């Protein structure tokens, strides 16, 4: 009688070892061979068919996703290369963007700068508010309010970005002018707030619209994470004599940190890639400028693709695709950094990493 427990334990790891163990006694023990009383599966590996089907399906899904990502990368590189060859400027160091001119000359610097600047500003505005909203819903609001409030936040996350863009240009723009003038008049010594009297349709407006868009995403996911904090940890903090805020700092925030970083990266990813809302509100220019209050001081990669694609020459389209490749790379780098931050503290993650 071969050892019946060993192959079962191995079955998940590899069917080869399992069937080898079964075959150890000479002829394989097939179903119906009445070698023992234990129930047999149809396959010699000891795995039930449902397990094998599910395993293949999930493996297939994973491989498909990898394939899609690689295909996107290959497509971007393939379509961008001809334009990059014809470029008479330097793609990685030039600020100007004239891919439709003859000869074409374009560089990514202004677009990449504008993309990162608007997203970082948006994150700086959205993150603290999102944390407040998430903690309020998870730990401060009376239960009667917490439910509906969470629902409203989820709803905000589902509003299409074009709606935010229209709202930004028709409603928020006029209001942001007043705010811009105020910031310039009172905090003009900060380089960000330098201006010469014309406001609106600025990087600031784009950032505020982006901030409002990503706030519900960050808040909604963070709230979920904060609700996962084990009651035992929260009670431990309270029993030590922590106030509610001290309990949150001691038990809730550290436990939720990996999840909050993930939520923030999702929000940042959406801000970096946001197209139509930015294209609607921003008065674009190919400049590297910190003058976030003024129109015509910047542009973003995604908005530029949307605005220029229709009228682009073949080389122009290639250039836009090259800029898309850069956006892809920026997003990748941001995510890798975030994963690295989480990984470094994995032993202290409390099982939530």
């Amino acid at each position, binding site marked *: 009688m071969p050892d019946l427990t060993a192959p079962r334990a191995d079955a998940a790891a590899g069917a080869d070892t399992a069937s080898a163990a079964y075959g150890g006694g000479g002829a394989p023990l097939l179903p119906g061979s009445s070698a023992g009383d234990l129930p047999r599966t149809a396959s010699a590996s000891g795995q039930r068919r449902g397990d094998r089907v599910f395993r293949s399906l999930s493996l297939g899904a994973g491989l498909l996703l990898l394939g899609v990502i690689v295909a996107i990368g290959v497509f971007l590189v393939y379509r961008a290369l001809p334009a990059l060859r014809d470029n008479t400027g330097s793609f990685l160091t030039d600020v100007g963007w004239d891919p439709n001119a003859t000869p074409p000359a374009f560089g990514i610097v202004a677009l990449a700068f504008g993309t990162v600047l608007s997203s970082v500003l948006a994150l700086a505005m959205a993150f603290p508010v999102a944390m407040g909203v998430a903690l309020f819903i998870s730990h401060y609001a009376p*239960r009667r309010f917490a439910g509906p409030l969470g629902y409203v936040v989820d709803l905000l996350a589902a509003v299409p970005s074009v709606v935010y863009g229209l709202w930004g240009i028709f409603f928020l723009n006029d209001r942001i002018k007043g705010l811009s003038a105020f910031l310039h008049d009172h905090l003009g010594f900060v380089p960000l707030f330098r201006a010469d009297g014309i406001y609106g349709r600025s990087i600031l407006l784009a950032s505020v619209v982006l901030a409002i868009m990503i706030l519900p995403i960050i808040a909604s996911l963070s709230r979920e994470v904060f609700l996962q904090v*084990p009651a*035992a*940890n929260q*009670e*431990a*903090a*309270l*029993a*030590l*004599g*922590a*106030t509610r805020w*001290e309990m949150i700092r*001691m*038990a809730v925030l*550290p*436990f939720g*940190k990996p999840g909050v970083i993930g939520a923030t990266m999702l929000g940042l990813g959406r801000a970096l890639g946001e197209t139509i809302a930015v294209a609607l509100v921003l008065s674009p220019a190919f400049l590297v400028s910190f003058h976030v209050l003024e129109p015509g001081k910047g542009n973003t990669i995604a908005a530029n693709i949307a605005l220029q694609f229709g009228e682009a020459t073949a080389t122009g389209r290639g250039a836009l695709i090259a800029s898309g490749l850069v956006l892809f790379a920026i997003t990748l780098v941001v995510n890798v950094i975030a994963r690295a931050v989480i990984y470094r503290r994995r*032993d*202290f*993650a*409390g*099982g939530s990493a």
Partner: protein
Amino acid sequence: MAKRIEAVDLDAYYGGFRAIEGVTLTIEPKSITALIGPSGCGKSTFLRTINRMHEVLPGARVTGQLLLDDEDVYGPGVDPVGVRRAIGMVFQRPNPFPTMSIYDNVVAGLRLNGVKKKGDLDDAAEQSLRSANLWNEVKDRLGKPGAGLSGGQQQRLCIARAVAVEPQVLLMDEPCSALDPISTLAIEDLMTELKDRYTIIIVTHNMQQAARVSDRTGFFTIDGPGTPGRLVEIDETPKIFSNPSEKRTEDYITGRFG
């Protein structure tokens, strides 16, 4: 400083449900009192009323008096946060903060109290870990996560965390029920040592444990489902286990009930 605890006609509610009714008892400082009784009899609820952890749950409230050296814990204007700083608690399941190192776990309460000097924290950490009989096992890995210890070590870490702030009373809610016999023995020895400095109250389902460690034992029970738990009697532990005054206590002790 260990303090005396006195409950006077104490009721505790979860929303509309009265979980315990009319508990009146006195617990002397520097003693170990065990609370025993069947599941759902309100002994854990009573324990949680002592440091006002009961009211952490929504809808939970308490009526009656609970005196800590003649000061009513439920008096007007008393801050529950202050009460909890004076009364330490150890829970049924070890619950070290998973995001903190062993060291940070032990000094978490001190940091809450505003102790910042590294020297003071280091001294307190070593002293508390020594009182919890854990120092020798963890002194070389204080920076490692507290959640990486074994269950028994984690529970002793929680005891170290609770005693680090020098509480006046130490509450233990079935502290050994998730532990193996060797870890249980270690914690029982520890309780006997800590008795010199603290008033200890332990809730336990294990009657041998109550008989082994406690000076006095209180027996709680309920008349039936949905009825409030009551304290049947509290007396010297040898008397409870050999010659209790109440028939119901005797039935429970001898296994005829519960």
